């Protein structure tokens, strides 16, 4: 957090950073509660890794949704596209005509096709994103059911080998009751998650596209005034989201090993909830991409916590809804408190003793230096 650096006291922490820090604190808090109440299971590293092993697809979907949400849009077709990809890949692999690479490129192709369609219609034809992605969701669901209706297990040996493949971490693990050391295991899907998180974080933080996207999500009109190609930026964000949904479908197939109609159901809602917990606002322009995995982790920790507590299955949904309620209210209260402080800061400097003392004087030399530099360049 460069903005927390004490040498620059007057740089205001951006909303994204603040919300990201809140998300991180909430995650640590939830994991701490989990550790305190169920020390036996949550202290094992494997429990933590299993979040990734079993929900790699959800993490990836959340990343794609995060990018679209930062751009001020929404894509509710991701879950259905993920399900469609699992079934299409399963059918391809089972028919014996395609190998794993073929399936992977099919997944990318389906995701890209949906992304291109959404992006073109939303960015260039200016149709409301909710309706178009709703239609995309219907389309993906309809294609899924026409493709194959029954659950389809993938039994191709190469794929099963890839599915069974695990990476063991020899220096991390637990000793079971018999005294046998069991190292922690990581599935291939987790590597995809990590690679994508790093890639997208770099993309959003340092690339031109990422910065343009923040500007477009914050205020489309002023982004256009700045000379940003708004349409292209939005188009690219939907294409990326579609691609990510395609990848998540392949990873889902790697996790479960079967194509099923119910695959990826309600992932769009889960992804939105996870992003909100991770401090990414639906309005757009605010949010740190790393908040997406943190929000997903928080969501999964809560679910695991409720399940471990043995709450009745109907109460589980209510409890998770209540927790979501608490987070949302907390976020909103913090943001409004911050706004009020901003209001006070907008007072003229002579009303604020600490600013009048050091604030203005400090800034002057920098401005003078900059002015001299420009003058030199002009000469």
């Amino acid at each position: 957090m460069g903005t927390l650096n004490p040498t620059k006291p007057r740089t205001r922490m951006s909303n994204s950073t603040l919300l990201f820090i809140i998300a991180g604190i909430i995650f640590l808090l939830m994991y701490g509660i989990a550790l305190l109440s169920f020390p036996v299971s949550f202290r094992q590293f494997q429990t933590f890794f299993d979040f990734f092993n079993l929900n790699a697809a959800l993490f990836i979907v959340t990343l794609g949704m995060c990018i679209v949400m930062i751009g001020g849009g929404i894509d509710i077709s991701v879950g259905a596209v993920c399900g469609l990809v699992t079934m299409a890949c399963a059918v391809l692999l089972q028919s014996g005509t395609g190998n794993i690479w073929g399936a992977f490129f099919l997944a990318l192709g389906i995701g890209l096709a949906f992304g291109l369609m959404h992006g073109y219609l939303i960015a260039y034809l200016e149709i409301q994103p909710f309706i178009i992605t709703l239609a995309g969701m219907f389309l993906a669901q309809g294609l899924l059911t026409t493709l194959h209706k029954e659950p389809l297990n993938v039994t191709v040996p190469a794929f099963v080998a890839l599915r069974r493949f695990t990476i063991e971490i020899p220096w991390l693990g637990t000793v079971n009751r018999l005294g046998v050391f069991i190292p922690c295991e990581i599935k291939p899907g987790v590597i995809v998650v990590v690679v994508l998180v790093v890639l997208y974080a770099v993309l959003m933080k340092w690339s031109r596209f990422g910065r343009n996207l923040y500007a477009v999500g914050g205020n489309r009109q002023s982004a256009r005034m700045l000379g940003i190609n708004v349409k292209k930026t939005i188009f690219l964000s939907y294409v990326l989201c579609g691609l990510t949904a395609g990848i998540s479908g392949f990873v889902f197939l790697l996790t479960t090993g079967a194509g099923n109609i119910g695959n990826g159901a309600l992932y769009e809602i889960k992804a939105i909830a996870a992003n909100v917990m991770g401090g990414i606002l639906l309005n757009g322009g605010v949010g740190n991409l790393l908040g997406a995995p943190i929000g997903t982790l928080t969501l999964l920790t809560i679910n695991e916590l409720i399940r471990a507590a043995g709450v009745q299955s109907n109460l589980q949904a209510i409890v998770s809804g209540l927790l979501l309620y608490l987070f949302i209210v907390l976020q909103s209260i913090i943001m409004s408190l911050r706004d009020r402080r901003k209001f006070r800061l907008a007072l003229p400097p002579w009303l604020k003793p600490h600013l009048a003392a050091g604030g203005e004087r400090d800034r002057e030399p920098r401005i003078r230096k900059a002015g001299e530099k420009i003058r030199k360049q002009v000469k």
Partner: protein
Amino acid sequence: MPRLKAQFDRLSHLFLPLSVLVILLIINLIKGADYFKITMVNGVFYGNIPNILFGASELVILSVGMTLVTAAARGQDISIGESGAISSAIFVQYVLQAGEVTIWTILAGFLISCVAGLVIGAFNGTLVSFFNVQPMVATLILFLGGRSIAFIIDGKVSPILANPISNQIGTVIPGVPIQTPIILTAVFLALVAVVLKTTNLRLYVEAVGINPSAARLNGINPKKVIFLTFLLMGVCSAIAGFIAVNKAGRHDSVNLLKFIMMDAILAVALGENSLGGGKFSITGSIIGAYTIEVLNRTLLRLEVNPEAIKAFKAVFIIILMVIASPVVRVSARKFLDKAKTFVAGYSVRQTGGLNKAVVSITDSSVKKEE
């Protein structure tokens, strides 16, 4: 004549939903000429049109509430199905515990379920208006937990509502030739029309939707207006739940009004309302809701593979939205203008009057600017 044109311009936003409805009806007519045939069975009208009116009654009521919420809060309520399930669960419990069922029991139960709807609306509305949460996120909470609450109120799996009065509300009252849900919907729509005509609701909602800060400076409290629309949405979903549960005869907390919010939002968009708030047209939303019902029934009637129905629906929606999109409209108008000028110029060139051609071109360009 100009007055007629003004009237037509005022109704121009209904052009898209109405034309779609007409196209669908024509497709149905081509499929079978007896589409509009209405038969009288036991003194009640049955047929395709009454069935559409009957089937779309909940969707119409919900889309009215959704239009108001969308216009004021600039976002959508995705918990309407769940809130309908909760309020109707309360209604069913009240009726089942009342013992003897009279019309007054039903009425009291209905009012209690409306109060439940108000409470749910207040919950969502507080989050949206006073905590400044985006509507879709705020209603996500009830979307996740709502069906479980309904299940807990039910206490057991799908309690059955077996009494003659609710059966009559769900189907027909003897001696009345129209199915009761249609009458209820008509009464509801009449009430909405009266409220919109006699109160300032429309003005306030549109003002808040177009610019909340400007509305506040003009003395309208945007928070109160948004809160009010969510309360109205709660009542709408309670009424829709009441009709749905009486139609089904049992309360199925898992499947009652499931995923109806997608259809309701679609109806709002089909009615040429902006999903980003602002001006709204209730008539458009109502026509949109009936269009969706007609579309569903048309796909069934055309014997589309049941697995592929959703894909067809998606393609239909995409085509519709592309036609309705502002960019396509502007370019189509430009193309038409060019064609007109070209034709005018061509005909003039044929007759040799070049000056006239210049006049006609400038005329058309002036028109474009207007």
